[in-house]
């Protein structure tokens, strides 16, 4: 019962955050909504007995990417020309398409639903994650490190390019 309530609370937080991201027109509210969503995702990781991922999510996203968003917003011009939600015919068409995709996803993935439980049946701590990441998944782990370094260098190169011109 407690697990179900916790799950429902986390679902409500993530859905509210996602709805805020797609609906709000104020940039700071958007960042707060994104932070709420990302904290909800971290909560789900903790709920599913994956504490390493929960901490990584908080450090990388809430502590890193959100701060990056805030830095970008400092130089950002507010969008005063934003259309209201579902005011355009295009938006209504996209909403219908997304609803169709939602139904398609549910129908396609339904066979998996019976195979899973709501609460985790196994737990996996940082030791198990380290054993995998530094064992069979070591090439993937190294590749991710190289990718992050490349993204960092590319980000600096892209953002610094305008200074010379």
């Amino acid at each position, binding site marked *: 019962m407690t697990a179900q309530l916790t799950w429902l609370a986390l679902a409500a937080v*993530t*859905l509210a955050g996602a709805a805020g*991201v797609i609906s709000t027109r104020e940039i700071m509210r958007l960042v707060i909504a994104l932070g709420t969503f990302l904290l909800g995702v971290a909560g789900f990781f903790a709920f599913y007995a*994956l504490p390493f*991922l929960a901490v990584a999510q908080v450090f990388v996203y809430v502590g890193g990417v959100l701060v990056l968003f805030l830095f970008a917003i400092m130089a950002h011009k507010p969008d005063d020309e934003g259309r209201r939600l579902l005011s355009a015919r295009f938006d209504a068409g996209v909403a219908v398409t997304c609803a169709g995709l939602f139904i398609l996803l549910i129908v396609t993935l339904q066979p998996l639903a019976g195979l899973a439980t709501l609460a985790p049946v196994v737990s996996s701590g940082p030791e198990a994650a380290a054993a995998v990441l530094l064992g069979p998944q070591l090439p*993937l782990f190294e590749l991710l490190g190289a990718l992050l370094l490349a993204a960092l260098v590319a980000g600096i190169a892209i*953002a610094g390019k305008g200074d010379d011109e």
Partner: protein
Amino acid sequence: MSLLLLTSALFCLGLYGVLTRHDLVALLASVEVMLGAGTIQLAAFSTTLIATGTSAASAASGQGYTLAILVLAAAEAAIGLALLVVLVRSGRTRTDQIEEVRG
């Protein structure tokens, strides 16, 4: 089933944001929502799938792949926000204002 409903709804909400929002920051945030939905699904299935014999090793593998998605999303956000800084300098922050590419 409830997990599938939640993650599918989150993914579709993110997709709706990507297709309808014209502001670059909002567009990037919507992409993060789509990726977040995927990571919840992957992490949850790595620890809750009982019929396929979920073990601690498979749960740890799920952690590895979820971490890969987290890193990819962080790299995507870094590049996207760097592009945003460049576009802000040229006075264009809406996707419908970006009509030309080089090359």
